[in-house]
């Protein structure tokens, strides 16, 4: 039985290590990092864009999205998001995850835009189908020119990526920009046509608003060929805009096909509720095990606590990003983790009834229950693996993936906690005076 004491000490060491990894939950003594929470729990936005590769020859598609991803990354940086995730998914999709941001609409508006700014001219006919923007200054349609026989709209896509913010003699904020060669051709055609008329500047669906809250629409004074300025913005607005303009352009058009936005407040509520559910759940399971199985039940309850701590430590170590479904899976697994114990204890009871000593009953119980535990857990593992494979092929798969990963880890750890830990604890009692108190081991003593 000396090996059992060694096992007992190993278990204590594992528990101690796991506990220092896990506690405190928000930092962790050993690793100093919190349990990673998914976007649905800490709030934020999860976006998936479908790239339109139809305009790109088959051969050039492999790296076609790299420029877009780089541009999105720089654009996101402007918002100061911590730990953003921007990556290509499959051949033609881009995944963007922005944890904890509050102005989702603005972020979205900026991320997928091919051009940050568009230029417009006033339409004379209010029913002109080309009209794209309407505001207090009138109806605007995109200002277009012709390059190489093609009609093109003037946008900031033709800016060189060297815009900067300065001030004029009067201290007013000015955003300087330069046209590239194509932009210069368009600009000179358009400004020549619009001399004395306003040129509207738009960002997305709205006019670019100045510091005074009014749309920026300067009157064209002269033909502009290679460079220009935008006046009237606030210092912060101009700086942010300049950074965005320099971040590069989205060359492959992107369509938003999936979005999940959760407010950080709601996410925090979920965590609180899940913790409560977990605590109540584990207490109910432990009470049941102790009332029904007595001393072995108590040992199984201790093993269950070890299970919970080890699983949480593994979550931190891998690290597993916990979504709400993942936490659900973990709490569910608290109820399922004692299954192996139940199987073993039921077996032990049968063996005790057949008149075996406690030691023999324990060993027989574990041995006989093993095939059932193994085969039944393999089926759960199969379900988990299929779920994980499924999840990696689905864009909206957050919940599935989180659940499958936590359940898989749970099943594997429960084999350890319910078998190794409980057996080691039980063996400690073999031969002791306690082991002769049958009432401690079963409710049904059969008069013994």
């Amino acid at each position: 039985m000396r090996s059992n004491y060694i096992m007992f000490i190993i278990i204590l060491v594992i528990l101690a290590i796991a506990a220092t990894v896990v506690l405190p939950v928000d930092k962790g003594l050993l690793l100093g990092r919190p349990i990673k929470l998914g976007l649905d729990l800490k709030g934020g936005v999860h976006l998936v864009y479908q790239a339109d590769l139809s305009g790109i020859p088959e051969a050039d598609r492999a790296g076609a999205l790299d420029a877009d991803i780089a541009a999105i990354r720089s654009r996101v940086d402007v918002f100061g998001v911590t730990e953003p995730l921007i990556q290509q998914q499959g051949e033609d999709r881009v995944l963007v995850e922005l944890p904890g941001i509050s102005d989702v609409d603005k972020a979205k508006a900026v991320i997928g835009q091919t051009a940050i700014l568009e230029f417009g001219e006033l339409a004379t006919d209010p029913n002109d189908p080309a009209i794209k923007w309407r505001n207090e200054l009138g109806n605007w349609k995109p200002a277009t020119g012709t390059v190489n026989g093609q009609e093109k709209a003037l946008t900031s896509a033709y800016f060189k990526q060297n815009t900067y913010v300065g001030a004029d003699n009067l201290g007013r904020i000015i955003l300087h920009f330069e046209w590239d060669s194509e932009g210069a051709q368009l600009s000179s055609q358009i400004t020549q046509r619009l001399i004395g008329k306003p040129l509207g500047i738009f960002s997305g669906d709205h006019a670019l608003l100045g510091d005074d809250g009014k749309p920026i629409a300067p009157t064209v004074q002269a033909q502009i060929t290679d460079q220009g300025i935008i006046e009237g913005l606030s210092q912060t607005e101009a700086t942010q805009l300049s950074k965005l303009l320099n971040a590069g352009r989205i060359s492959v058009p992107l369509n938003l096909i999936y979005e999940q936005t959760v407010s950080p407040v709601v996410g925090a509520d979920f965590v609180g509720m899940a913790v409560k559910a977990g605590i109540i759940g584990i207490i109910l399971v432990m009470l049941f095990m102790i009332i029904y199985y007595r001393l072995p039940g108590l040992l199984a309850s201790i093993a269950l606590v070890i299970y919970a701590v080890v699983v949480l430590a593994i979550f931190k170590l891998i690290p597993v990003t916990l979504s709400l479904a993942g936490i659900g899976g973990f709490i569910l697994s608290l109820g399922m983790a004692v299954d192996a114990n139940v199987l073993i204890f039921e077996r032990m009871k049968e063996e005790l009834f057949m008149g075996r000593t406690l030691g023999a009953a324990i060993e027989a119980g574990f041995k006989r229950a093993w095939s059932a535990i193994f085969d039944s857990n393999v089926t759960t593992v199969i379900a988990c693996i299929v779920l994980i494979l499924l999840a990696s092929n689905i864009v909206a798969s957050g919940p599935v993936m989180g659940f499958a990963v936590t359940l898989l880890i749970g099943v594997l750890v429960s084999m350890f906690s319910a078998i190794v830990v409980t057996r080691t604890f039980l063996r400690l009692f073999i031969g002791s005076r306690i082991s002769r108190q049958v009432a401690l081991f079963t409710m049904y003593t059969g008069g013994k």
Partner: protein
Amino acid sequence: MNIMGKRNWFFIISGIIALACIISLATTGLKTGIEFSSGSILNITFNNPVDKSALRQELDKAGYKGALIQTAGNESRDFIIRLPALDDAAKIALVNDLQASLGDFKENEFDKISAMIASETSRNAAIAVVIAVVAMLLYIAWAFRRMPSPFHFGVCAIAGLVFDTLLALGIFSILGGILGWEINLMFITGVLAVIGYSINNTVIVFDRIRENVSRGISADFAVVVNRSIVETLGRSFNTSLTTLFTLFALLLFVGASIQNFVVVLIIGVLAGIFSSTCISPGLLVTWQKRELSKKVRAGAEAARVRS
């Protein structure tokens, strides 16, 4: 306790239940959430109480006549609005409209799923269910390879699983009809968990059958199976009970967001007790007996021909 003696009754009962589920699925069907049919969901909390009918009116005015409105949490302040897939501009416009006419609100959650993603999700979910079932059938046939006709064990276990899943689907189609519950990815996750859990239960019973057959308890297969069921009954109840404890804790404390997942599992766990003790072993006994009598008859035939 002679469970196997009453197996024909259990077949009739489960047949009726299964038929009811199929009828409900065929007539009411399942209400699909945006994950499967595309659309947007806007979850908001008004700062001040708002009448549901006023919200409905505003949505109608904004051109979203078919929008579904559900109240959640606080009846007059928390609303979940199901809309067609909105693009950014339409969403911002709608939010501005509603705030202007009904007062300020917090946006708790906004989800949007395009038709492309929705059809992908449906297809992949169906594939996953099929793969999981086939993989388990193969594993059980392998695990019981030393038994006579191991494939029977696999098929009977799957039959129990089909019953559990059918019951979950049937009840959800009824819940969909009455309470407007939609099936979403959480639901599919729950169904796959039920598939794993249900097989898990059946395997425990089959494992005991395997053991008792090799111990040669009785020549009558029905007796062996019945004894195996009775011996594992304690475990089946107790494990289901501990699992139900945690499920109810989740249902009570976390609620709406994972409600689908939890309810599917509760149905699955309860159905699993029945299917793993009555349906799967019962089918196994009936099937084995028929094979056996076929063999006996063939033997008798051969004997007759020889004479």
